[in-house]
């Protein structure tokens, strides 16, 4: 078989202009490893990649030059930008995001994004160049053991030293990245493997014998869970990104609607259920809404769907929902009973488990119980929300900016946030109508994520409005990515909420460190001038009167736009569950 492939390949010498087609699969063509990399990407349906060239990846870049009509390469200004952009792209499109970098510093600059993608279950494939295989382990120029470094933060990683392995490894990489609980995969390719030739034949991977992406669901567990839900008087659903990753938004809605189950989200679950849904009880966790946090410790059955009980969600776990029976559905077995002991653990894809559960549960409304949520919502609304989003005097609040953006985009925009106070405010006050619309760094809390993730998101959804909401601290962590926006001319809206502070840390210093503002004051540059320097239309707002009009102008503008809004210097985000407190101890001030 193999020999037949080779002889045919020798005959077909016109690999130069051959796209990946069905016939290539059968024939097999003699090409270089670097061309095989590009053809493998095309075979996986990739049309956009983010990267930065360098010595050890140059052969692949040479092929990217050749294939630029089929594969859009976005030149970022730093490899961290490339990986975050791939994440943003993946989160909005539901496809695998791809980034590419050279060996050594190129590879290490990807690390933050890989760790971010790992903890937030984002399917990305990272390609790194590596020194020639004869130099491995010799501390060669720009050699780093990226396989060793990324071992704890990738779902899978592998080094290719033989060009023949390229198609098989790429097929496995894409399969692993997107199946089961998604995650980042890193492929490290030595320079000789890029130069050497192989018989290219691409087959998509559909099975790896040691890997079970779709769990064996135990019907008995579903039945037991349904029984518990049917006997519940105060059931409460928590949902996370599992609903989005499992493409189970519809199944989820049917489940809560039939059971009359109030539901609250983790920040990665946000946008899986439309904000206006009467059963959507808002945000969980440290800066989440008052009602869902408070009532977590009063429900009698807690149903966790595709979420992992992050400590920012649970507060003090020893005082978390102790009164409740807990049903935990997750595709990752290691998450069940990891933080919170489940009465019933259901190891399953939510897309499979939810319809079965919906079938078995009784139709109910739980009106009285839901009233309790509304009552607490009322308290939060009066004490916090109204002041946050409709202030009449004083400095501009982050809340009112987010509220106006949300109103003007009618819940249809993709909202990308960075990390910090503005992130919490963005998640709290943006209303969503569509899934996959809230992009943020949840688990890792990576400042600098927002700007690159946002242009990645925009390239994945060119027809949608994409707004990046970023603080003045996080903006400066990847500010160089304005260069990428300049070069790609991507129509991205950037809102910098500037309080001249590292606001979240400052808030903690105010509350827990006697207002000792240790190194959180920022002397900031003229962001508008910087924006102009990058050829981006930019504007600064300091008064409330212009706010609505200027946001409208930004949204209407045909092209990238940087809007700096000076917001209250010492505004705090409330409610808040202080570290070590229980969810029920959530503070309103």
């Amino acid at each position, binding site marked *: 078989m193999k020999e037949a492939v080779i002889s045919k390949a020798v005959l077909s010498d016109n690999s130069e202009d051959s796209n990946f087609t069905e016939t290539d699969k059968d024939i097999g063509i003699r090409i270089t490893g670097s061309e095989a990399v590009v053809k493998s990407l095309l075979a996986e349906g990739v049309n956009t990649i983010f990267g930065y060239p360098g010595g050890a990846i140059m052969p692949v870049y040479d092929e990217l030059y050749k294939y630029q009509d089929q594969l859009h390469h976005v030149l970022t200004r730093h490899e961290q930008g490339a990986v975050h952009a791939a994440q943003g792209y993946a989160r909005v499109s539901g496809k695998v995001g791809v980034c590419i970098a050279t060996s050594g510093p190129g590879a290490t600059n990807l690390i933050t994004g890989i760790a971010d993608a790992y903890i937030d279950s984002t399917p990305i494939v990272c390609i790194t160049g590596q020194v020639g295989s004869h130099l491995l382990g010799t501390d060669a120029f720009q050699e780093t053991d990226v396989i060793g470094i990324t071992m704890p933060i990738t779902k899978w990683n592998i080094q290719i030293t033989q060009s023949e392995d390229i198609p098989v490894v790429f097929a496995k990489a894409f399969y692993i990245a997107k199946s089961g609980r998604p995650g980042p995969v890193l492929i490290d390719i030595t320079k000789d493997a890029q130069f050497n030739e192989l018989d290219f034949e691409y087959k998509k991977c559909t099975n790896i*014998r*040691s890997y079970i992406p779709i769990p064996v669901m135990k019907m008995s567990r579903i039945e037991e869970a349904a029984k518990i839900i049917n006997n519940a008087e105060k059931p409460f659903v928590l949902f996370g990104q599992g609903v989005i990753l499992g493409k189970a938004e519809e199944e989820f809605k049917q489940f809560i609607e039939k059971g009359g189950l109030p539901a609250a989200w983790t920040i990665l679950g946000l946008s899986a259920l439309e904000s206006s849904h009467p059963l959507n009880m808002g945000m969980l966790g440290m800066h989440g809404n008052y009602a869902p946090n408070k009532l977590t410790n009063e429900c009698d059955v807690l149903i966790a769907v595709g979420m992992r009980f992050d400590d920012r969600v649970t507060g003090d776990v020893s005082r978390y929902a102790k009164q409740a029976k807990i049903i935990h559905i997750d595709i*990752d*077995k*290691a998450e069940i009973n990891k933080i919170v002991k489940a009465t019933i653990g259901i190891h399953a894809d939510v897309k499979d488990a939810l319809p079965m559960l919906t079938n078995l549960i009784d139709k109910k409304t739980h009106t009285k119980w839901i009233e309790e949520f509304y009552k607490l919502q009322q308290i939060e609304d009066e004490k916090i929300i109204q002041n946050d989003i409709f202030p009449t005097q004083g400095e501009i609040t982050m809340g009112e900016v987010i509220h106006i953006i949300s109103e003007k985009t009618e819940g249809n925009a993709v909202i990308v946030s960075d990390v910090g106070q503005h992130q919490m405010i963005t998640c709290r006050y943006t209303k969503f109508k569509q899934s996959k619309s809230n992009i943020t760094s949840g688990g890792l809390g990576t400042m600098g994520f927002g700007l690159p993730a946002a242009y990645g998101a925009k390239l994945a959804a060119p027809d949608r409005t994409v707004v990046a909401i970023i603080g003045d601290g996080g903006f400066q962590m990847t500010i160089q990515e304005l260069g990428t926006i300049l070069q790609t001319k991507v129509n991205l809206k950037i809102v910098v909420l500037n309080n001249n502070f590292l606001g979240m840390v400052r808030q903690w210093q105010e509350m827990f460190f006697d207002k000792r503002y240790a190194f959180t004051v920022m002397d900031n540059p003229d962001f508008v001038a910087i924006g102009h320097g990058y050829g981006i239309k930019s504007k600064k707002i300091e008064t409330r009167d212009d706010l609505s009009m200027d946001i409208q102008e930004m949204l209407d503008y045909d092209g990238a736009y940087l809007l700096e809004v000076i917001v209250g210097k010492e505004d705090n985000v409330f409610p808040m569950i202080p570290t070590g407190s229980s969810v029920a101890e959530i503070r309103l001030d």
Partner: protein
Amino acid sequence: MKEQFTISVFTENRIGILSHISIIFTRRHINIESITASKTEAQDIYRYTIVVTETRDMVRKVVRQIEKQIEVFQAYYHTLDEIIYQEIALYKLPIKVIKKGAELEKIMRQHHARILSVEEEFLIVEKSGHKEETQELLEQLEPFGVIEFVRSGRVAIIKSMWRFNESLHEMEKHKQETLV
């Protein structure tokens, strides 16, 4: 309550698996008391036997995280009463101990140990058994002047009649069903 667990991990034969497994213990500050790797009765399947002293809950969490590794088929954990296990120890003694032949022979007999090799300057004693047993022999040989002592990691066989090949077969069957 902490107790001793023997973890058996079945994997593909791939470079780096050992690191993948060991960092999971490192992250949680769990000391690996011993680790061994070998081929199994199933073709191309490798088996790691890892001994740790931890709470059952912690061991279960770690084993689940090990199982998440793409090239790990399955991982199990067992208490001492659920396995048959063995370790091997080698002792290097100066050749002059031959002069105390009778005394040495008595100890060797008591411990079911044997002389593996006799060289010009030293001899090697071998004993297999549980750690306490090889430790006890070490203590008894110490007066003879032990030059070197080394003990292997544990190898363990699970008492139940479970077979890895069967569970591999189950995995494949399940995948065929879920693919439809």
